[in-house]
């Protein structure tokens, strides 16, 4: 067996590629300022969407680590450096939110462009929004952003620090520490992620509410995270890294992609069917805005890409064990996740100005480039496999 002491070399070519993606994204955004003139809401909606998109994958990466430790999972020990590396991206979305908050001082920008409830005059005239104002007000919302990110970033850093320390000293000490950390983090993650989904996405339509909303967002994020992990492994393997990772690991990640795509559909249907069936005026506006007019094409395309595609393309065993096919399905799923959240964010922010143009592509590339850079950079900073992980042996000999 090849040596397990292996580090990823972040070559200047790759580095320039990722920086280039971000720079091109930035140029497109700047061009958008000219082309999509005065469409501030669309600008900020795209900022939020793409910022959240890559954020969601990196926070779910931390929760994945927590689940692995609590479940005594062995198969994933050999690939856990990838979610670890992904989690180092978290400070950037935090800065993204700081920018959204900072921009709010200009009227019509930042939060004020995204959230109706930030406008005092509207809230005062509306008894429902007044009733929600103890929760939905700018100050508390900003405090919550800080609290969420404080918990997430601290825990993510702790995982990585413990895991790297374990590489040096071995023993069970740091394993136990991570189990304890997981027991603390996972419940905290459950609460903070739910509230974050309510704060950032659901409150875009402040009159509307759905208790399952956060679960649905989480399901999407989980599929996205699994997809990114699987793609990263395949790309690393194609570049002669991590040869001990086999199609068995990809198969397991693929099963997660498949299963949680179905789970996403389940939560999607729970929300849609119950609201459609009960037909209450408090709840239906969400779907009224999305199932009619031009939105209806995207609405059904969303179901097709997020459910039908992975369901049919990933059903067979061999499909989950063929790297190039995984790359293809992964690309479809990454697109699908973008569309899923696009439909949540756009109708009540960008509204009639929404489309697929410079802003959409620009912001996606801008944040995507930074995400890839941070992932590759962090992979290069630690050994690609946690050599002293007590369950590593199971992962190295993993067979499905």
């Amino acid at each position, binding site marked *: *067996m090849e040596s*397990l002491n292996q580090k990823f070399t972040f070559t200047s070519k790759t580095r320039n590629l990722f920086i280039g993606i971000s720079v091109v994204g930035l140029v497109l955004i700047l061009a958008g300022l000219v082309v999509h003139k005065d469409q501030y809401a669309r600008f900020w909606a795209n900022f939020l969407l793409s910022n959240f998109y890559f954020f969601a994958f990196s926070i779910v990466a931390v929760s994945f680590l927590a689940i692995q430790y*609590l479940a*005594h999972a*062995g198969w994933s020990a050999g690939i856990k450096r990838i979610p670890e590396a992904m989690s180092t991206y978290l400070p950037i979305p935090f800065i993204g939110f700081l920018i959204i908050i900072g921009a709010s001082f200009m009227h019509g920008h930042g939060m004020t462009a995204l959230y109706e409830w930030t406008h005092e005059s509207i809230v005062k005239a509306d*008894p*429902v929004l007044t*009733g*929600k104002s103890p*929760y939905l007000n700018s100050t508390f919302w900003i405090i919550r952003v800080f609290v969420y990110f404080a918990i997430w970033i601290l825990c993510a850093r702790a995982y990585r620090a413990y895991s790297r320390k374990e590489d040096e000293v*071995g*023993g*069970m000490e740091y394993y136990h520490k991570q189990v304890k950390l997981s*027991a603390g983090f996972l*419940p905290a993650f*459950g*609460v903070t992620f*739910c509230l974050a989904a*309510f704060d950032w996405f659901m409150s875009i339509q402040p*009159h509307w*509410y*759905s*208790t*399952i*909303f*956060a*679960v649905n967002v989480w399901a999407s994020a989980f599929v996205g995270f699994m997809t990114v992990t699987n793609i990263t492994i395949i790309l690393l393997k194609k570049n002669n890294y991590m040869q001990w990772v086999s199609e068995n690991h990809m198969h397991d990640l693929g*099963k997660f992609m498949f*299963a949680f795509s*179905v789970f996403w559909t*389940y*939560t999607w249907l*729970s*929300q849609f*069917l*119950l*609201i459609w*069936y*009960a037909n*209450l005026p*408090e709840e239906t506006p969400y779907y009224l805005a999305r199932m009619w007019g031009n939105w209806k094409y995207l609405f059904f395309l969303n179901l097709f890409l997020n459910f039908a595609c992975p369901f049919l393309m990933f059903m067979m065993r061999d499909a989950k064990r063929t790297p190039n096919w995984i790359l293809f399905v992964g690309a479809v799923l990454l697109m699908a996740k973008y569309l899923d959240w696009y439909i949540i964010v756009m109708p009540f922010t960008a509204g009639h100005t929404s489309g697929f143009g410079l802003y959409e592509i620009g912001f996606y590339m801008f944040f995507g480039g930074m995400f890839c850079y941070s992932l590759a950079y962090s992979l290069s900073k630690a050994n690609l496999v946690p*050599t002293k992980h*007590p*369950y*590593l*042996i*199971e992962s*190295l*000999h*993993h*067979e499905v």
Partner: protein
Amino acid sequence: MSIESPIREPLIFGDVNLHTITEDVCGPTEHKPTKAWWFGFTIACCGFAFGIFCFTWEVMFGIGTWGLNKTIGWGFDITNFVWWIGIGHAGTLISAILLLFRQEWRNSINRSAEAMTIFAVMCAGMFPIFHMGRVWNAHMFLPLPNDFGPLWPNFNSPLLWDVFAISTYFTVSLVFWYTGLLPDLASIRDRATTKMRWSIYNFLSFGWTGSVRHWNRFELVSLILAGISTPLVLSVHTIVSFDFATSVIPGWHTTIFPPYFVAGAIFSGFAMVHTLLVVARVTMKLENYITIGHLEAMAKIITLTGSMVGIAYGTEFFMAWYSGYKYEQFAFINRAFGPYWWAYWSMITCNVITPQLFWFRKIRRSPVAIFILSIFVNIGMWFERFVIIVISLHRDFLPSSWAMYVPTWVEAGMFIGTIGFFFWWFFLFAKFFPVIAMAEVKMIWKKTTTGKPAGAFLPLQDYDPDKAYQLADMNNPNYLDSAGGHDHGHSEHHHTEEPITH
């Protein structure tokens, strides 16, 4: 062959070999039942008999013998129905979903959990059927062709979806359970000492011969059934939740109901498995197979699903306030501080607060504590359904329709009757059928006991991964290179293997 880390807790303890597995599992079916068995069985029979009396009473005198009224049309009946259906979820979760997750600890507990599922679903089914009043018209549930115009069932109603979901679930669970039993029943047959016993078990095992072709089809059918069961187990409680959530009743109509009901069902199902197995493993001397590790794993699932249920309670409460919908807000304040406040706080205490004790390893690994906590969960989950059903109904939109609900002795008796019925089946099962899936446990026996430093896990209660780490010399830098040999095992530790006859 896959390799297990030395620190992974073995799933089979003690001085066990393939022969002793057969002895330990088949033994109870071959000896005369113990006094404890007769004692339990008699009590179950009494409860069952009283249940028959109460069900008969209800059929003779009608639904008026219950405490329901115009406002509260669902009371004990549907509460018990949902409670039993929930309990029936652990079996299929263990057999199907844990199979997909390759959790091998399921092998010792799947048989009894699946049996429990089947009995619980039978209990559940009684309530909606008898709630019809005219049980002799029960076939009108079904889309049978008839001479009186269109079909009877209302296909728009989730109550009808329930009929299909539950009957499908019952059928698949039964087939899955029975398929798994075939090789084990054949083992019992092969050990039979009388012609009569041989014939009965031969019939029950469908003449299983253990040929390669039998095993091949057995494995294939099991895998297909696992694939079918996984969406089924999620769909059953999803549809039960639709019974409530498709309505417009405050407290019932909320979109988180489907996954929240499923989590709650798994929660209560595992609690019932705990309740049964903590006792059964001692009385039937199965501690080597249903180990502390098994109980701990189930306790972890209870903590997980209990926390999910807790977060769902929180979400519901928060969203009721956030919605700004005053009926919804009233429904939730009334839950906590209305006339049925005691039911709500019993639910919160038993479902959210006490299971948190499972965060402590000592408690997770103490059978006595587990037993007590599992009873708490059983009670809490019953109250959850009572809270959802009765509390949401008893304050109608018009204050003139407000009412209270008190169950009558008939309803209470029917509930007791189903508990008796459930245990009646379970005692019979434990006496005549192999309570552990022998064939499956034998498959993991070698893997789970090989390569583990013996000193790390004896005596039973005190498995210590740190000690295992030391004994296996995992700190040695060459450990990973040398450890590959573990999968061939240290054959000197093995006992003489009996020829596999199953």
